[in-house]
């Protein structure tokens, strides 16, 4: 559905996006994950024909950006960062405006308006002036505008930024719902968001894709062995050594609070053995927790290696 080949953007010798190449099949929800200034917004602006790429090729639903920029834009519903809207318009007026600009025919218009207002839960506020709406509603108005012409591809730049937790949950549910009949590319720097919403994640740093995979696969591949936290009372000095001899255990570390963190190989489960050992040595077992490392750790590891600041290119 989306093909990107060697896409780059360079501002005066500084590459902001550096040779992105990827393919997104129909129906996939892809997340761009990266720190601020990683080039996510610039990449999206090039994919939506807003910024001309320095080099590279973009094809969306079979339409090549170089040959038919207007045609490519027809296939995309785009929600820019911070959801720019016209505050003086009513929700209905805005959606009609978007429909006309996007080329929705007069006969389809009433049905499209009903569909997007219902999907984005805007039915109650259709007559309200946009400037008076809360941020959560404005986000949904922007999303409704992006959906009005039934685009096969949705590109959403930071769709949950600046919302309160309830609003975030609603928008995420909405995106998950939209993912069923759209190909979606969204960007975020919030990790749980990717894990909840996306089928696939790119971790982007300084204009490059540094990791590509499902959220699960990335976690497995990049985090290493699982960890087990063990809290014991009355454990003597021999405890680390004894724990270390359990089957599957790779390493034991004693934490400052007196608990132990055991690293063990992926398919082993030393919990039972820890329990039996504790009973055997008459230690009191207070806690046994499997620690699942999050994408956060991957993210930090991949993007923190070099603190050099990439130019943002946020301004237009």
């Amino acid at each position: 559905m989306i093909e990107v080949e060697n896409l780059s953007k360079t501002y005066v010798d500084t590459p902001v996006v550096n040779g992105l190449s990827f393919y997104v099949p129909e129906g996939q929800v892809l997340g761009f994950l990266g720190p601020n200034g990683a080039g996510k917004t610039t990449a999206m602006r090039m994919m939506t024909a807003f910024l001309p790429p320095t080099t590279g090729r973009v094809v969306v639903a079979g339409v090549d950006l170089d040959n038919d920029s207007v045609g490519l834009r027809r296939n995309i519903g785009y929600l820019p960062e911070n959801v720019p809207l016209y505050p003086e318009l009513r929700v209905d007026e805005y959606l009609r405006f978007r429909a006309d600009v996007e080329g929705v025919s007069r006969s389809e218009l009433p049905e499209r308006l009903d569909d997007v207002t219902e999907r984005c839960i805007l039915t109650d506020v259709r007559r309200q002036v946009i400037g008076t709406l809360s941020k959560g509603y404005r986000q949904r108005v922007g999303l409704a505008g992006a959906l009005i012409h039934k685009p096969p591809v949705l590109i959403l730049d930071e769709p949950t930024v600046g919302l309160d937790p309830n609003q975030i949950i609603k928008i995420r549910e909405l995106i998950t719902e939209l993912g069923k009949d759209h190909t979606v590319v969204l960007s975020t720097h919030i990790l749980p968001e990717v894990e909840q919403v996306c089928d696939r994640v790119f971790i982007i740093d300084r204009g490059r894709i540094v990791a590509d995979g499902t959220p699960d696969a990335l976690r497995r591949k990049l985090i290493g062995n699982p960890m087990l936290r063990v809290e014991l009372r009355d454990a003597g000095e021999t405890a680390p050594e004894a724990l270390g001899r359990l089957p599957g255990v790779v390493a034991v570390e004693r934490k400052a609070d007196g608990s132990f963190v055991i690293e063990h190989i992926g398919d082993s489960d030393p919990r039972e053995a820890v329990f039996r050992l504790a009973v055997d040595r008459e230690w009191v077992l207070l806690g046994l927790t499997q620690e699942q490392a999050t994408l956060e750790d991957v993210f930090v590891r991949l993007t923190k290696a070099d603190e050099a600041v990439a130019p943002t290119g946020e301004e237009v």
Partner: protein
Amino acid sequence: MKALSAIVKRELIAYFSSPLAYIVMAAFLLLQGALFALIVGYLSQPGQSSMSILQAFFGGTIFFWFFLVVAPLITMRLVAEERRSGTIEVLLTSPVTEAQVIVGKFIAALVFYLSLWMPTVIYVVMINTQAAVDWGAVAASYLGVALFGALFVSLGLFASTLTRNQIIAAVIAFTGLIVLFGVPLIRGLMVSSSVLAAAVDHADLWQHMADYSKGIVDTRHLVYELSLTGFFIFLSTKSLELAKWR
């Protein structure tokens, strides 16, 4: 076509939902009304009938001072505000061309400008009850008003594509208007037979308007106003395309 009319409509809603529009309208009518009353009073004195009211109203210098303030106020928001708020990104990633965006905004601004003049038609009707009105001259005067409006609005629109800041856009438009108006003022510095002097005579907007107010529609004037308008619309389109690179 539908996209174009949608852009025009949205701009008009923006004009008429902003307090600025009503303040501009009120100030405009107040000044025009005062001017009209002064002219009628002046021409009513014995021995002052050598000039028609239309000539005094449209052909006088005061006519131009309105534009200096009103045109930049009308146009400063057009593109600058969309660039500041980011709505330009939504607009230019929808299947419309830069030219459609510019032409749509130009039409909307011109319609708003003409709506400022609409109430002044009452003056003509009022004169008609007291004296004979030369309807040809009336038509030519309003044609002049419309042509000048188109020219100044296109200049202001171009200024608005150059920046994200409405005030800067207004200042640039203001400066451009002063240059356009000021051309005849440097006429005195030139050798009267030189080519340059002839060019300046040709570009003398004060003279153009004086002619329109007498009912003279000179095609050279018409071509000057229309071609400059087209030129500024073209520049605005190019400038909007370039704005993506900045």
